[in-house]
C-alpha cells in the first residue's frame, strides 16, 4: 500500500492533469449544452490544434504560449465552418445522425493527418519544458501547472462571455428555447455556428497549453475523446463548473488508478465511472434535467 509521500504528489499530479482534461471538456460541454450534439470529432480537432501548435513552433519558432494568439482564433473559424457547412445539416431528425457525422469527420481528420504527417510522435522543445514547481512537497512540471491555471482562466472567460455579452445571451436564449429565440430575431444558424466555433476554440487553447508537457501523433485524439465524454457526463452536460470539477475528479481517478492498479489498468476506473454515471445518474453532478 503506497504511503502518503507517494499518494499526495500523485493526487496533485492528477489534479494538474485533470485541469488539462477539464480544458478539453469545456469545449465539449459548451457544444452539448447549446447545440445538444455530442461532438465525436472533439479528439480529432484537438489533434489538429496540437499539430498546428507544433508546426508553428517547428517552422517559425513560435512558442506554444504565444501561439495562444493564433491557434484558438483559427480553430474558432474551423469550428464555425464545420457546424455551418456540415454538421448543422446532418440531423434529419435523428440525434444519432449527428453522432455519425461527427464520427465520420473524426475518421477523415485522423486519417488525413496519418497520411500527411505519418504516425511519428512529435514533441516541442521549449526552454521551460522540464522546469518544475514545488507545491506542498510535490514537484510538479511547470507546463502542467500553467495548463491548470489556463483551464481556470478559460472557464472564467467563458462564463463572463456567457453572462455579460450579447453573444452569450443569444447563445443561452437559443439553448433554452430555439423557436422563441428565433422569433426575437436571433439568427439560429449563425449563433449555433458561433457556439460550435467557441467550443473548438477552447480546444485551440487546450492544444497550446497541452503540447509543452505532452506530444502529438495522429492517434492522440482518440485517447482524449472518451475521457472528455466521461468528464462532461460526470460533471453534467452543459455545465462549465461541472466540466472543471469533473475534470479534476477524473484526473485524480486516473492518477490513483495508475498508482493502485498499475499502468495498463489505470484507465479502467474512468470508463467504469462513465458507464455507472450514464446508467444511474445521467444528468451528472451539476447538469440540469434534460
Amino acid at each position, binding site marked *: 500500500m503506497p504511503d502518503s509521500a507517494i499518494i499526495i504528489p500523485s493526487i496533485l499530479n492528477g489534479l494538474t492533469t485533470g485541469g488539462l482534461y477539464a480544458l478539453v471538456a469545456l469545449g465539449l460541454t459548451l457544444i452539448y449544452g447549446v447545440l445538444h450534439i455530442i461532438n465525436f470529432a472533439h479528439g480529432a480537432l484537438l489533434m489538429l490544434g496540437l499539430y498546428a501548435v507544433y508546426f508553428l513552433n517547428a517552422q517559425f519558432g513560435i512558442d506554444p504560449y504565444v501561439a495562444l494568439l493564433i491557434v484558438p482564433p483559427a480553430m474558432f473559424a474551423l469550428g464555425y465552418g464545420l457546424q455551418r457547412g456540415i454538421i448543422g445539416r446532418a440531423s434529419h431528425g435523428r440525434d444519432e445522425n449527428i453522432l455519425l457525422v461527427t464520427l465520420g469527420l473524426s475518421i477523415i481528420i485522423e486519417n488525413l493527418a496519418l497520411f500527411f504527417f505519418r504516425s511519428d510522435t512529435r514533441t516541442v522543445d521549449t526552454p521551460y519544458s522540464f522546469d518544475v514547481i514545488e507545491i506542498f512537497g510535490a514537484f510538479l512540471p511547470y507546463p502542467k501547472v500553467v495548463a491548470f491555471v489556463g483551464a481556470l482562466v478559460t472557464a472564467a472567460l467563458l462564463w463572463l462571455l456567457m453572462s455579460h455579452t450579447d453573444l452569450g445571451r443569444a447563445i443561452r436564449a437559443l439553448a433554452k428555447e430555439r423557436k422563441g429565440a428565433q422569433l426575437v430575431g436571433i439568427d439560429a444558424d449563425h449563433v449555433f455556428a458561433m457556439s460550435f466555433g467557441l467550443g473548438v476554440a477552447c480546444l485551440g487553447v487546450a492544444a497550446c497549453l497541452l503540447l509543452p508537457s505532452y506530444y502529438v501523433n495522429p492517434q492522440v485524439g482518440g485517447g482524449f475523446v472518451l475521457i472528455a465524454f466521461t468528464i462532461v457526463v460526470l460533471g453534467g452536460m452543459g455545465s462549465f463548473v461541472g466540466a472543471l470539477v469533473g475534470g479534476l475528479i477524473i484526473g485524480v481517478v486516473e492518477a490513483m488508478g495508475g498508482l493502485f492498479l498499475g499502468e495498463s489498468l489505470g484507465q479502467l476506473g474512468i470508463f467504469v465511472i462513465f458507464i455507472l454515471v*450514464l446508467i444511474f445518474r445521467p444528468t451528472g453532478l451539476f447538469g440540469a434535467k434534460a
Partner: protein
Amino acid sequence: MKSTNKLLVLIVVFGLIALAPLLITQESLLNIVIMTLYAALLGQAWNILGGYGGQVSFGHAAYFGTGAYTVAVLQIQFGINPWIGLAVGGFAASAVGAFIGFCTFRYGLRGSYFALVTLAFAEVLRILSNSVDFTGAGVGLLIPLERSAANFQFLTKAGFFWVIWAMTFAAFLTVWKIGNSRFGAQLMAVRDNEDAARALGVDAFRVKMGAIMLSGFFAGLAGVFYAQYFLYLDPYIAYGAAISVESLLVPIIGGMGTLFGPLLGAAALHGLSELSRAVIGDAPGISLVLYGVLLVIMVLFVPRGLAGLSSHLRVGKPATPKTEEGKGHA
C-alpha cells in the same frame, strides 16, 4: 418487395457467390471476396441491433473481440478444437451482449447515450485484455499454424471461403426471418416508437435483449473467423475502434434496417478500397479517409443508404424516422 421474393433473391445471390471459388483461381482475388463476405457478416450483425432494433452501437468490437479471444484462448491454453471454439465463441459474444443489454436497456438508456456506453464497454474490454496474461496482454496471441480442416485452418483459401460463406448466409437468412416474423415486427415497432409499441403489448426490454444477443452472436462468429484466418490477435485488433467503425459503416452505407444493405455496403466499401489502392497506392490512411467521407455524405444526403436510394426516387417522401427524445433515458 414481398418477403418470399426477398428470400428468392437472397438464395440466388448467395448461390451465385458460391460459384466464386470455382471461377476465381487467383488467391488474392478470392481473398477480396472472402473479406467482403466477412464485412457483410459483421455489418449484418450490427444491422440487427442498429438497423432493425434502432439501437446504434459504437462498440461492436466488444462482441467481435470476445469471439476471437474465446476461440484463440480455448485453443492455445486448453487445446480445445476451434470448431467447438466457434460455437463457444458465438455464445460467449452473445452473453456479453446480454450483459451490456441488461445494464443499459434495464435503465432505459437510448440513442446517443447508448452509443457512448457501448463504446465505453469495448474500451473496458480492451484495457482488460491488455492487462491479463491469458489473453497475451499487450503482446497478443498467436494461434499455432496447423493447416487442416479439422483444425479450422485450410490449405487453400477455398476452405475459408466456404466457412465464411456459410456463416454469412446464415446471418442473412436470420435477418430475413426477422423481417418476416413476430419478433421482427415487435423489434421494429420498438425502434420506430417505443411507447406506442408498449401500448400494444410489446415487451420492449425482452425484444431489445433478443436483438442484442443475436447481434452479438453473429459479430462473435465474425471474430472467430478473423482469428482463424489471420492467426494473430491483440487488444487493439480485437476490441479496437477499427472493428467498431467497420461494423457500423457497412450497414449505414448499404442501408440500415434492410436485408441486403450490409451486402451492398460491404461490396461498396471493398470496391472503394480496391479502387483507391489502384489509383492512389497503398498510402496509409487514405482508404479510411474515403470511408469517412462516404459516411458523412451518406448521413447528409442519403440517410437510408444505398438500399434506400430507390425510395428516394419513388414519388412521395419516404418517412424519416421520428425522434421524440432519442437521447438519454426513457
